[in-house]
């Protein structure tokens, strides 16, 4: 069964509540006691500070973090195929979608992502790392916002930073209205959407003002429909469990039979 995909309109790894809630959400979708989560920071050129922040973010949640830097493959001596396909989740960060797609093609990562999806691995990411899963995204990778083809695991188009980047929003609406690209999903920063089997299961948000929209061609050019997004619980509402307790909790979750009493699973 293909794995879930989580698209995030915008986030980062800084320890701010709106970021932390989204990362809690992603980790909550994973069933392993110590889930393996691999960062693919290609779109931003594999910056070391982002890699460090990702490791800290995931390790605080009891996950086993790693990363694949296409700009340093020799140095890190990781076989991308073996490594990516052994993950519970693959996290793709933002930057240039144009470069992301070009580099993935060059290194065969696009094919691996498809395989990972088919094997049930959760794929997620923000910004370029969110749009890459769709047929089309709206990228500033070549300067002005313009449609760019993604790997197409999800049908239709996707626009990130929707309310935060008016020029991108306008370019997206224009392209959808003109029929140049298919209808799709627009996400604000700190809004996210969970897809299973190619269908939107739920939209969530970690900030009250963040919204999600379905954007389609309409009689007046473009039709924008708000998608209800569940407000995620604020992180730190409960005392943060230690690493070992977190692992213990995950072990309990994964050994329990599935059922309504199952902890933390949002089906």
């Amino acid at each position: 069964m293909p794995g879930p995909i989580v698209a995030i309109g915008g986030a980062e790894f800084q320890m701010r509540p709106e970021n932390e809630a989204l990362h809690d959400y992603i980790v909550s979708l994973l069933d392993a006691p110590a889930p393996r989560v691999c960062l693919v920071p290609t779109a931003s050129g594999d910056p070391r500070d982002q890699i460090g922040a990702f490791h800290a973010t995931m390790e605080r949640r009891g996950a086993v973090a790693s990363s694949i830097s296409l700009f340093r493959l020799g140095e890190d001596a990781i076989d991308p195929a073996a490594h990516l396909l052994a993950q519970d989740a693959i996290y793709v960060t933002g930057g240039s979608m144009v470069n992301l797609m070009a580099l993935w093609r060059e290194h065969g990562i696009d094919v691996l992502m498809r395989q990972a999806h088919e094997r049930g691995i959760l794929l997620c990411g923000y910004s370029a790392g969110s749009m890459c899963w769709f047929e089309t995204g709206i990228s500033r990778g070549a300067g002005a916002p313009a449609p760019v083809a993604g790997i197409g695991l999800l049908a239709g188009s996707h626009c990130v930073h929707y309310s935060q980047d008016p020029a991108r929003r306008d370019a997206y609406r224009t392209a959808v209205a003109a029929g140049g690209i298919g209808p799709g999903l627009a996400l604000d920063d700190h809004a996210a959407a969970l897809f299973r089997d190619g269908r939107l299961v739920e939209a969530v948000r970690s900030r009250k003002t963040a919204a999600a929209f379905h954007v389609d061609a309409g009689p007046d050019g473009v039709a924008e429909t708000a998608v209800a997004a569940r407000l995620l619980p604020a992180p730190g509402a409960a005392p943060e469990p230690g690493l070992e307790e977190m692992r213990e909790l995950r072990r309990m979750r994964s050994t329990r039979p599935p059922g309504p009493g199952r902890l933390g699973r949002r089906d």
Partner: protein
Amino acid sequence: MEDEAEIVPFPQDDERQIVAFGGGGFSMEAGNPLLDDYVLELARARRGRPRVCFLPTASGDADHYVVRFYRAFGAAGCEPSHVSLFRRDRGAADLRDHLLSQDLIYVGGGSVISLLGTWRAHGIDAILAEAWRRGVILCGLSAGSLCWYSQGVTSFHGEVLRVRGLGLLPWSNCVHYGSKQGPRESYHAMLRRGMCPGYAAEDGSALHFRGSRMVAAVASRPDARAWCVGDGGDRVIETALPTRFLGGEPRPGGDELQAVA
């Protein structure tokens, strides 16, 4: 054949210039500006205060690398700039205009496969070829050397890989020659299997081309060498090139370099 060899005058008038470093310059030789000074001097023939644009693409536009470029070139009597393809703030027309208005384009090291893939996605490959034809001097080290040739060999990604460059120079290339990153044996094996002849450059050496012809081999270290390599039928022929050390007196015969191809 050898009897018929003739000395071909250097085409010093060919405006299309490339200086390919085997390794060195501000990226690798802190405190030794000899190779960077060499390319800057060539650029000064075009403009008193030359425009120098750094392309850090092969490193993923690493911030620290861009900072080091400005540190090295900021005080060098030139007009430095850089182009980031990961944070593009220039439109396509601007990007082209900017690159074509330069006197020297300096390509940094890193992953040559990522470099070429990213360039293609932005059409930089075509712009650089045009810049070269118009007389903008192209230079670079490591991945920034391999990229100008037809073919190259790299072990940057761990395993030894054969890469196709932009092909402005109709030769093959191996950088960091003789070191772990510049696998001599693998390069020779590829030459035996039909890779076109070419040039191998050790760290600290650089090859200066006008058009497709090599006109000088220079070095920032007295012992750095460069080689002309090709398949000789039953073995690989490796010819040491007379290399001029830029830091001192020219070696005897160092200027008597003849066309090697």
